[in-house]
């Protein structure tokens, strides 16, 4: 499968998952395109579309918590930022994703 069609497939799969959790793809189309492409490349390499913005630990139980979309496993943190770590997904009410900072959980908690 070529990269473009796999990107479309991941977009379809993941859009259905994040919607009931109150998230949507970021309105920044360029970012969506870039991140999905990175995920397809990671999937081609590892067999799994891992998060492009968190590093693999080579520890299955930890690495499975950064398979996209990883919102269920980091929800408290992401809900405070209104975005996932990568910014691929944002809360449904977000229209200006550039205004959302990428904060460590410890700091985000006190914002």
């Amino acid at each position: 499968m070529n990269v473009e069609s796999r990107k479309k497939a991941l977009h379809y799969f993941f859009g259905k998952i994040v919607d009931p959790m109150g998230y949507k793809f970021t309105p920044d189309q360029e970012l969506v395109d870039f991140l999905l492409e990175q995920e397809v490349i990671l999937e081609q390499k590892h067999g799994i579309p891992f998060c492009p913005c968190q590093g693999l630990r080579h520890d299955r139980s930890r690495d499975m918590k950064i398979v996209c979309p990883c919102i269920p496993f980091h929800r408290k943190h992401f809900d405070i930022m209104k975005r996932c770590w990568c910014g691929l997904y944002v809360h449904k009410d977000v229209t200006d994703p550039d205004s959302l900072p990428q904060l460590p959980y410890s700091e985000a908690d006190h914002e």
Partner: protein
Amino acid sequence: MYTLSTCPWCRKTKNFFAGHNIPFDYIDYDLADASTQDRIIEELDAHGATGFPYVKIDNEIVYGYNPSRYAELLGL
């Protein structure tokens, strides 16, 4: 700084430093060898960091893309 080759925020971080003509060293964690990865993970874990970018300016750690904090620490 520790970065990932796949992460757009890591690219923005590098661009921020390059754009301000600030020299920097970086390691792309995903492209590093196993022992380097282990060392980086140990450092990230010690600071409770789970993702990238991870930037050290003098003794300060900035985890996550944060241009205003970079500017503050660099005196820009």
